[in-house]
């Protein structure tokens, strides 16, 4: 089992579908997957935005985190299983040697 952290920075309706699907499929295959939303990627956390995608990711066991600073900048309250987090978490993942991939 591998440990993956995918960083999604694009608007979810404008090009991040691949990283969502990759996260879902790797998690379903038994890997430890964190999807970390930054910048416009945090729009996925908004209620009513791609709720079906968030449900699929949650069902697959993907841990969904979102940069709390980016959420606050955009006035987004995290929903659908997404939790606000500090960028410290991403640095933790890098230091721990997880496979961190920015999409």
């Amino acid at each position: 089992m591998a440990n993956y952290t995918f960083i999604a920075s694009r608007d979810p309706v404008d090009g991040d579908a691949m990283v969502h699907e990759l996260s879902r499929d790797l998690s379903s295959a038994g890997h430890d997957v964190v999807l970390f939303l930054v910048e416009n990627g945090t729009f996925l956390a908004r209620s009513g935005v791609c709720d079906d995608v968030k449900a699929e990711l949650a069902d697959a066991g993907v841990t969904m985190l979102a940069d709390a600073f980016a959420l606050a900048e955009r006035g987004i309250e995290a929903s659908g299983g997404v939790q606000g987090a500090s960028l410290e978490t991403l640095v933790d993942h890098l230091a721990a040697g997880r496979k961190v991939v920015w999409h």
Partner: protein
Amino acid sequence: MSTTLTFMLMDPPFEATRSTTALRLLQIAAERGYNLNVLAYEGAVYVPFAGQTGHPNPVHGHDVGEEDHPLPREWVRIIGETAASNGGSLDWVNCGMCADERGANDAVDGVRRGGPPALAAWMASSTNTLIIPTRA
């Protein structure tokens, strides 16, 4: 055992939030005293560009001092100082060809010229590497 993180940046400052997020990550790692390697590629060579200056904001009625415009070159300097003061380091390489074609060779102190071979060498000896791509 010390922690060494390598980053590759590709987006220019002032245009893309990726540059800002990258600097936020570097700042956190610097505060932890990690050894940091950065390859600035393509437009990212302007992140440490020494010619950046603040400006007034007539829309808001602010002079230069009141506007206090944040400058990435200052952030690069602070990250280097922060890493050093916490027992770490910052080795920032600007891609030489990228800087030449953009006229961006006037970088802040501590930035050196190099290229992708530096990235390859760092990757082999780092705890981890984060490539931050430009948006296609």
